[in-house]
């Protein structure tokens, strides 16, 4: 999801930037160079043996574009790899959310979502505009099952339980009506795309060490079982289908799927073409269809194929001060996405699939395995930013797949962080204009949320925030800060190395916060539990201040007094800028870390005694007389989420410079 993020971004643009863009980001972009040698194999590090369910879907869809309905069948092989006996199973039936007074509509109105009005439209949908999934039959191993549709959840008490370490076959038939697009998926989106088919089929709920995740769909988060998809879609021959998967019958389809020179022979049956896709090792499958799609293809530098599907328009619109040229947006996208992929492979781990599709559709930007739906009526810079963001979800949502409802910051936050680093680099390479990377916005959002006294702990379930604005601030902004600030704590090199290691160790395994922090502990050789506990599981805030610089009896020295005002203790980088000579870093590790980060710059660094979290005052003897000091700054990199930066700097008295 990108929508919340973007809206917040607009809100924040009108705020004065409170501090300058951290300099470290410039150096971050040199990351890539230093990364080559940091790729460490995950096998060095042990990880818990966590069991995981497995699924294969074989689905046959017969679409009726006049009624916007389809008939579907699925054969699902489900492996219960858990040590538990399962007495019931659950499917998501997302489209049922688009019926009047659904939980999705009620929750949105109640919580004052940004999109409350959009969501409230659900209550006024006419019968033919609503969405529904009607299960006609369900069998397990050939035997009919009882089932009950409870809004967006199909509840199935099993006639016979599924024992541990066994597999079963489910066969389901259903009928669906595609709703008008209200949120993410549906028909006839705002840019005229006919079908955006996200959350469109009965999808098995995930079962893991925390039990069943059969949460109702409130327009929020996703969590799924990894498996292989084999999907056949029969649709009116005039439609072009784009999907997050590998098309198996390009010679029967064409539309740019065929290789150059290949002979295409379309064989419509009853006026419909059959599209056959495979998607191995994914936890969802999405497709779109439109009669006007133009399909462009690019063999990317990493040898994967990138697809671009959009409806060409020749018009150029003005949106406020912005000139919007959607066609140009799409024309310019492939080259940049190729570069983005290279950067992402390098810095965040290798993209493991063979294809990826950028598809015009949906309601802003939404991530799926091997695909994203994008709106393109945007400025080019924003369009690129959204495309980068959604693609980066492949790393944190599609491949790592943390439970988004419980830990949205591990998906949205990390994705935002990666997006910010990439955007910065694209700007540096002059591939896009603008400042690049909204790190400042993340910090500003977080600070605004604190200032408004709206904080809730980051361990809050996504659906259950008191304020949806706090969800956004936590998931996106505080989530991104979690990593920027972690770079401050353990050093950028360790962060970069750790993020690669985390990806390698936990891909396709649904990591939780502890799994993440344990990797970071192992890479940095520092204890980081305190960071997780104070930052994620509580709402503590950080504020350090330079209290005083006192003259010492020994004129060549002075005493710096730093005060801890916030409840959360942090390690401190304090930079002293003498009136003459090079700046010097005074580094105070936090006692709870049981170690120090490596030096991050070439400045001389002095490691001082540990800062104990109970201490509210830190005294430092500086090897400069007070008059010799021009300036002292706590964390000039701005990575520490210090709520009051004004008190981080001490300026020596002007005019006292000794010549």
């Amino acid at each position, binding site marked *: 999801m990108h929508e919340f993020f973007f809206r917040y971004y607009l809100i924040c643009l009108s705020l004065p930037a409170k501090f300058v863009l951290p300099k470290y980001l410039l150096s971050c972009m040199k990351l890539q160079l230093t990364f080559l040698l940091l790729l460490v194999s995950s096998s060095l*590090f*042990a*990880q*818990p*043996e966590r069991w995981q369910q497995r699924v294969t879907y074989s689905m046959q869809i017969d679409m009726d574009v006049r009624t916007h309905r389809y008939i579907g069948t699925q054969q699902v092989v489900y492996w219960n790899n*858990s*040590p*538990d006996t399962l*007495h019931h199973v*659950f499917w998501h039936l997302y489209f049922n959310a688009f019926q009047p007074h659904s*939980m999705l509509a*009620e*929750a949105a109105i*109640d919580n004052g979502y940004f999109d409350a009005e959009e969501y409230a439209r659900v209550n006024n949908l006419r019968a033919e505009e609503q969405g529904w999934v009607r299960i006609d039959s369900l069998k397990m191993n050939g035997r009919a099952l009882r089932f009950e549709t*409870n*809004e967006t959840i199909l*509840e199935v008490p099993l006639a016979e339980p599924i024992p*541990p370490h066994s597999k079963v076959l489910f066969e389901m038939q259903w009928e669906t009506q595609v709703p008008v697009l209200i949120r993410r998926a549906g028909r006839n989106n705002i840019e005229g795309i006919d079908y955006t088919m996200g959350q469109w089929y009965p999808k098995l709920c995930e079962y893991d*060490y*925390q*039990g*069943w*995740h*059969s*949460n*109702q769909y*409130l327009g929020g988060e996703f969590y799924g079982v990894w498996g292989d998809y084999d999907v056949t879609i029969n649709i009116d021959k005039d439609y072009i289908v784009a999907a997050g998967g590998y098309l198996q019958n390009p010679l029967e389809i064409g539309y740019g799927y065929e290789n150059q020179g290949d002979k295409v022979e379309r064989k419509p049956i009853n006026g419909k073409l059959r599209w056959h896709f495979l998607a191995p090792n994914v936890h969802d499958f999405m497709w779109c269809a439109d009669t006007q799609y133009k399909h462009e293809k690019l063999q990317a530098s990493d040898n994967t194929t990138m697809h671009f599907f959009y409806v060409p328009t020749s018009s150029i619109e003005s949106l406020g001060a912005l000139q919007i040229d959607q066609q140009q947006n799409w024309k310019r996208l492939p080259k940049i996405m190729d570069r983005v992929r290279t950067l992402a492979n390098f810095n965040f781990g290798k993209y493991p699939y063979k294809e990826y599709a950028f598809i015009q559709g949906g309601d802003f930007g939404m991530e799926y395995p091997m695909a994203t739906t994008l709106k393109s009526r945007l400025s080019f810079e924003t369009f690129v930013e959204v495309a980068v963001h959604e693609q980066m979800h492949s790393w944190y949502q599609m491949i790592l797949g943390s439970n988004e409802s*419980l830990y949205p910051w591990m998906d949205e936050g990390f994705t935002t962080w990666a997006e910010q680093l990439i955007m910065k680099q694209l700007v540096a390479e002059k591939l896009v204009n603008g400042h690049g990377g909204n790190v400042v916005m993340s910090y500003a959002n977080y600070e605004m949320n604190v200032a408004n006294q709206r904080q*809730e*702990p980051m*361990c*809050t*379930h996504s659906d*259950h925030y*008191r304020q949806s604005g706090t969800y956004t601030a936590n998931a996106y902004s505080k989530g991104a800060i979690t990593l920027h600030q972690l770079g401050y704590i353990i050093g950028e090199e360790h962060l970069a190395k750790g993020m690669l290691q985390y990806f390698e160790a936990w891909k396709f395994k649904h990591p939780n916060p*502890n799994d993440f*922090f*344990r990797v970071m*502990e*192992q890479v940095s*050789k520092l*204890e980081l*539990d*305190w960071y997780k*506990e*104070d930052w994620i*599981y*509580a*709402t*503590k805030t950080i504020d350090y201040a330079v209290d005083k610089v006192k003259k010492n009896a020994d004129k060549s020295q002075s005493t710096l007094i730093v005060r801890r005002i916030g*409840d959360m203790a942090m390690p401190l980088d304090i930079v002293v800028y003498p009136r003459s000579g090079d700046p010097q870093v005074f580094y105070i590790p936090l*006692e*709870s870390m*049981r170690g120090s980060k490596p030096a991050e710059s070439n400045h001389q660094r002095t490691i001082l005694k*540990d800062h*104990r*979290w*109970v*201490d*509210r005052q830190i005294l430092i003897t500086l090897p400069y007389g007070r008059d010799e000091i021009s300036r002292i700054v706590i964390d000039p990199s701005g990575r520490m989420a210090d709520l009051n930066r004004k008190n981080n700097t001490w300026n020596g008295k002007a005019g006292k410079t000794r010549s």
Partner: protein
Amino acid sequence: MKIRLSLLFLLAGSTLFAQADRWQQRISYLMNIDMDVSKHQYQGAQKVVYSNNSPDTLYQVFWHLYFNAFKPGSMMDVRSRNIADPDRRVGSRIAALKPEEQGFIKVKTLKMNGKDQVFETNETILEVNLSQPILPYSTATFEMNWDAQVPKQIRRSGRDNAEGISYSMAQWYPKMCEYDYQGWHSNPYVGREFYGVWGDFDVRISIDEKFVVAAGGYLQNPLEVGSGYENPGDKVEKKVRDGKMQWHFIAPNVHDFVWAADPDYLHDKIKADDGTIMHFFYQKRDEKDKERGLVYEKAWKKLPSVMNRARTFMNTNFGKYPYQEYYFIQGGDGGMEYPMATLITGKSDLDDLIGVSVHEQLHTWYQMLLGSNESLYAWMDEGFTSWAETLTLEQLAKEGLMEEREVSKNPFKDDYRGYRKLHLSGKAEPMSTHADHYQTNRAYSTNAYVKGAVMANQLGYIVGDEVLMRGMRRYFETWKFKHPNPNDFIRILEKESGLELDWYKEEWVNTLNIIDYGIVGVNENASDTCTVVIQKSGLMAMPVEVMLTLKDGSQHLYYAPLESMRGLKPAETSVPRTVLPDHRWVDNLIFFDAPFPKAQIRKIEIDPTQRLADMDMADNVWEQE
């Protein structure tokens, strides 16, 4: 409560149920202690066999050196002086300790597998960078020598407590930190929680012959020390060397070891009905304190029979006590739990003495045997212990074993009140907060004890009390000696109840969302029925149970399960129950029709059992005017 009568036959074998495969470190301690009571110092030696059962290579190890907290300027001292509401027992007392009153542990030598190790004492944590890493699934042997000084008693342990007990020896030796799937737990001691490695202790204590030693372990040489440890008729031959006697204890499968010593200890012993031995160590009555002294002494004399009954109740309801002995020892500064033992202050009347003895003994279940990480999940220890304590004390009161305590209609009332009060004060913090890092002691203690007890009792409302009791035993059987976390607990209750309970954990533990239901309307319908309207004002949704009492006295229960539960609890009483459609958590109104004219209804009440932690009870009852 009726619960307990039906429980006897419900003990379910744990083998039926799968459990998470979680690795765990293992340890054995062999310790030799030579005490100098004139200086309050001792010399110690330990040989530790440490099994790294983790899949990780360990490059460092850590020991707790708790006594180092009792020095001016220590983290415990600074924390106590900075926090808004310091523990009265600590306050700024550490800052005032004179050198001979301070505590210390000075590690002199440390070897691993015979090789000297480099170590650094960082206040209460000994940091050791190993000369060679400990590989996964391998064992290392450590040998350590140290000197310690026992501090004047400030908190929990030390010498010369307020009641004159010479030595309360808790947190007294270098104890290895626990390493688990969350990494090292080498938190400095600021006076709060404990977490340890399970293992076997073999401890020899040499101390001035005038002292009687009590400990959380099995004495191995009763015939050499006597003092009531011997069986009647056994011949005791005290072995005194250089004026000292050696006391030899072993304690198998525990994660800590406590002892206490005093020259004036009386020692009573009973064989409890479950075959275990209960020891009672308390001071001889002070002749100067005649009247109160008699009260105390009488209380201590009555305690054994009450504790025997309490133990039977605990074994039946919470799981079987697995050790052979247990010690109630006068000492410490209130009540503090240890494996096989508790240190309690002893100058109390009977009810107080029973209350603290029951509470501390019940920690055996939730802290000694389950051993959840207290720092992270304080409520899983203190909360569940408080919950079990209340049930036990209620039973004792019911059987007339308490002096003044009477059976209460709602024994958890004070817990609910405490929880509400903290919330309304605006000082609440989420229960997911690390115990050391609360902004106030009050928020910590309310969460740990009170909101934790409500957590358990309210779960009875959600899944039914019988299921809760079965679930708590299944939890104990499945997770004893394994450090369960909140998910492990909730998963057991999910399996026992057949309901989904993740939402309860997520909202009750991880957020400050509150529950508030109210009756906002009883509307007369045309057809001799009426419609009851319930409003949800809090963000946290719960299953809703409404009791309707007619003027003729008959009762009808209306039950709306929460949609998130995906099921319903069994009926808990014989009152006819109507199951309403699921209550979806997004809905702010619940309506139901009752087939009675409004005029016939005397009273409508949300949750008459008062197990629901409703924030505002004022609108929970509607009565016919």
